[in-house]
């Protein structure tokens, strides 16, 4: 798992700096009477023949104050064993 975490770390920085924004979209959500706007940007970069995605989510209150905008990513890998 450490190797996977290290790979993720390396790739996230790379995708954020070198990746292209493929698409962007907004949603609005109201929680406890406060309306929040979510702005999404999908970054993509080809690494070793595979296109990796990174989503940047920016959350704003109704008056435009930014709350938080983390980078998020989910990656996958097969679990295999070799039968001899």
């Amino acid at each position, binding site marked *: 798992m450490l190797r996977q975490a290290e790979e*993720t770390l390396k790739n996230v920085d790379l995708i954020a700096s070198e990746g292209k924004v493929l698409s962007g979209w907004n949603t609005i959500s109201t929680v406890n009477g406060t309306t929040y706007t979510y702005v999404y940007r*999908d970054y993509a970069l080809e690494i070793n023949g595979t296109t990796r995605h990174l989503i940047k989510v920016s959350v704003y209150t109704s008056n435009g104050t930014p709350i938080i905008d983390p*980078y998020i990513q989910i990656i*996958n890998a*097969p679990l295999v064993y070799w039968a001899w």
Partner: protein
Amino acid sequence: MLYGWEYGAYTHYTPTETSSFLAAAHARLEGADDFMAIAPYISALVSIAGYFAGCPAVGPITALILARIGLGVKQIAQKTWEAINYVNMFNAKDDPSFGFMLYQNFHWVVNPQWWVPQSYTQFCLIQSNGVVYHVWTTTGVCYMTANAVNSYVAFITWYNNHMGLGVGISSLAKAIRRKFTLSSMIKF
């Protein structure tokens, strides 16, 4: 042989956002008496799901996972805050520009093996020097109920369909089959 899939879910807060994250975590974890108050601060999958409208819920299932590690809710909240606090202090000293990172490993065992009979998840904080800090236990392994696994798979499938994981499950399975066939041919 392909016997399952491993997923790594990652949320990275910048140094500026880390202050908001820590303030919210402290407020929610102190005196927390339900699993849902804890989940967004330790589970990258729950935190990610919280940012997308219309996705299958991940949160309530966390209770089923946490209940299996033998700790009460208050103990878990306390240990979670201690872990967050420790890693934040380390990061602040080691590399103030790093921010704060949640990392969750989901080991989905489709065909159980003797060395891994059940799916499990691990809740981790990644330190600025790359070290994986397991929360609660030294290995961080939390075995999952079938309902918990189903919930995670439903969310990840939704995420893959809407955002993309980079590698489609079917294309990876084909690649594995090709490799296995090739090695069998060489051997025999």
